[in-house]
C-alpha cells in the first residue's frame, strides 16, 4: 500500500505549536494550546469509530468522564501518580467500551446514536448518586497532591507535556490504523457492513477493537484535564454538548481522514475563542456553530480536507 506524506507536516506542526508557550514564556498561550491539543485528541479518537467505521457515537464524551473520574479518584484517595492513574483511566474506559460495545455495536445507524446518548445519561445519573465519588458536587483536590510534582505551577506544566505526548501518540495511532489491514477492514464496514462480512472481515471484532481504541484516548484526556482543573463533577465530565463539539470538529475537518480532525479541532478552538471574546457574538457562538455545521452537512459533507481533496488531486498524498 502506498503511504502518503501527511505525518511529515502534521507531527512537526503539532510539535511547533506545543513549543510555542515555552518560547513565548506565556501562560495564556499554554492554556490555549492545552485546549487545542485536548480537542485534537478527542476529535482524532472519535474519528476512529465515527469516521473510519461509520458508527455515530453521539455520547462519546462518556469515556472522557469515565477516565477522568477513575484517575481523579485514584489520585484523590490513594495518591497515585498522574501517569499511572491516567493509564488506568484509559484502560478502564477501553474495557467499558469493549463490554458496552459488545451489546450496542449490534445496533446500526441512528439507533446506535440514541443508545450511546442513553449510556452517557445513565452513567451520568449513576455517578451523580454515588456518594464515594462525591455525588452531584463532585470531588476537589487538596493542594498537597501537587507536591509530588514540585508544586501546583510545575504540576500544570507537567500535565501540559503529558498532553503533548498523548496527542502525538493518538495521531500516530490514527495514522497507522488508517494505513493498515485493520483500517481497511473498518472502512469496508463503513461502506457496506454486510458486504464486509461476506468478504471475510470479522466485523464484530473489528468494531469492538475500534470502539475500544477510540474510547482509550478520551479516557487519558479526561484524566489530564481534571488533574489540571483540580476538581471534577458529573455535569462537567459527562456534558453532552462536549460530545457534539467532538462531532463538530470531526465534520468540520473532514471525517474519515487523518489530517481532518486535527485541522477541525484547531479551527473550532480558534473560532470559539474569537466568538467568546467578542461582546456581540459572546452569546451567539452556539447559534453560529450550529449554522456552520448545517452548511457543512448540506454542502460539504467531506469537511475542509474532503473539499480540498476533491478540488486539488495533487494534494491527496499530503491530506490523508
Amino acid at each position, binding site marked *: 500500500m502506498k503511504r502518503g506524506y501527511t505525518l511529515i507536516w502534521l507531527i512537526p506542526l503539532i510539535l511547533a505549536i506545543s513549543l510555542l508557550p515555552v518560547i513565548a514564556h506565556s501562560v495564556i498561550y499554554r492554556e490555549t494550546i492545552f485546549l487545542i491539543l485536548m480537542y485534537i485528541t478527542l476529535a482524532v479518537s472519535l474519528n476512529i469509530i465515527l469516521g473510519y467505521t*461509520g458508527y455515530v457515537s453521539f455520547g462519546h464524551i462518556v469515556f472522557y468522564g469515565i477516565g477522568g473520574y477513575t484517575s481523579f479518584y485514584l489520585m484523590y484517595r490513594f495518591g497515585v501518580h498522574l501517569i499511572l492513574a491516567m493509564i488506568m483511566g484509559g484502560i478502564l474506559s477501553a474495557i467499558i467500551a469493549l463490554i458496552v460495545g459488545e451489546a450496542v455495536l449490534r445496533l446500526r445507524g441512528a439507533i446506535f446514536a440514541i443508545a450511546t446518548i*442513553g*449510556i452517557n*445519561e*445513565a452513567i451520568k445519573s449513576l455517578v451523580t448518586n454515588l456518594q464515594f465519588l462525591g455525588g452531584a458536587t463532585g470531588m476537589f483536590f487538596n493542594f498537597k497532591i501537587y507536591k509530588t510534582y514540585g508544586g501546583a505551577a510545575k504540576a500544570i506544566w507537567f500535565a501540559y507535556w503529558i498532553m503533548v505526548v498523548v496527542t502525538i501518540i493518538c495521531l500516530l495511532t490514527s495514522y497507522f490504523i488508517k494505513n493498515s489491514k485493520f483500517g481497511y477492514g473498518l472502512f469496508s464496514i463503513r461502506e457496506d457492513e454486510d458486504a464486509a462480512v461476506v468478504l471475510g472481515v470479522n466485523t464484530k471484532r473489528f468494531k469492538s477493537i475500534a470502539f475500544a481504541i477510540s474510547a482509550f484516548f478520551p479516557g487519558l484526556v479526561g484524566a489530564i484535564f481534571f488533574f489540571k482543573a483540580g476538581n471534577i463533577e458529573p455535569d462537567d465530565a459527562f456534558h453532552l454538548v462536549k460530545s457534539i463539539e467532538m462531532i463538530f470538529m470531526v465534520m468540520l475537518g473532514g471525517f474519515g481522514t487523518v489530517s481532518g480532525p486535527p485541522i477541525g479541532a484547531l479551527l473550532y478552538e480558534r473560532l470559539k475563542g474569537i466568538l467568546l471574546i467578542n461582546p456581540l457574538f459572546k*452569546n451567539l457562538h*452556539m*447559534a453560529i456553530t450550529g*449554522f456552520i455545521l448545517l452548511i457543512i452537512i*448540506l454542502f460539504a459533507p467531506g469537511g475542509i480536507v474532503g473539499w480540498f481533496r476533491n478540488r486539488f488531486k495533487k494534494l491527496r498524498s499530503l491530506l490523508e
Partner: protein
Amino acid sequence: MEAWIGAILSGILLGLVYGLAAMGLNLIWGVINVINLSHGAFIALGMFSAYFLFHFAGLNPFIAVALVLIIGLIIGMGAYFVALHRVLDAPELSTLLSTYSLSLIIIGLGTFIFTTNPRAIDIGLGSIGVAGIYIPISKILTGLFSVLFTVILYLFLYKTWTGKAIRAVSMNKSAAEFMGVNSIFILSLSFGIGIALAMIAGCLIAAIFPFTILSGSVYELKSFVICVLGGLGSPLGALIGGLILGLLENVFALKIPVGYIPFIEFMILVIILLVKPTGLITKR
C-alpha cells in the same frame, strides 16, 4: 394508601404530558425515519410562544394552542426544506447532525434573546381536591388536551386521505409515488406536523411547569425513552409510553431515591434498544 393514589394520579397526568411531548418525535421517526434532535428546541420554542401570547396578547395557553399549532406547522415545513430535504437520502449521520444544528441555532438564538432566566405562566385556575388529594386544574386540562390531540392525530392518520398518504409514504415511498402521492409534500407535511406537536406540547407544559430556553432537552431525552417504549409511528404508542414513564417516575419515587430514576429510565432505553430495536410495542 393516599400516597399511592396521589402518586398514581399525578403519574397519569404527567404521563399524558410526556406522551404528547414524545408524539412529534415519534411521528417524524416513524414516517420519515429521521431522529429529530431539534425536538427539544422546538418544545422550548412552544413554551416561549405560549409565554409571549399570554403576556402580550392575553391568550390563555389552552386557547393559544390553536395558534401555536399553525405557527408550528409553518415553521416545521420551512425547516424541512432548509435542513432536511437535501440530506434525506444521505447516511443517518447527516440527518442527525442537520437536525442537531437546527437545535443549536434555535437554542443559541433563544439564549441570546431571552437569556436562560426561568419563566412561568400563572393562569390561576386553582385546584380541585377529593379526599385530601389536591390536583391543579391546569394539570387536568393539560392531560385532557393530550388525549384530545392523540385522538385528532389518530383520526387524521387513519381516516383522511392525507393521513393515509403519510402512512403510505412511511411504508414505501416509491410505491406511494406511483399511486399519485406527492411524496415531497407529504414528507414536509409530516415533519411540519411533528414540529407542531412538539410546540403544542411545549405550550401546554408551559401552563403547568416553570421553564427556561433549555428546558426542552429534558423532554427530548425522555421522548427517546417513550418512543422506544411505545413503538414508532403510532400516536397511541407514544401516549402509552408516556403513561408508563410518568407512572414509573411517580410510583418509583415512593420507594427509591429520586436521583436514581434517570439512571433507571436510561437503562430501560438501552436495554429495550438491545432487545428489540424497533420498540416494545409494534403493530404490523
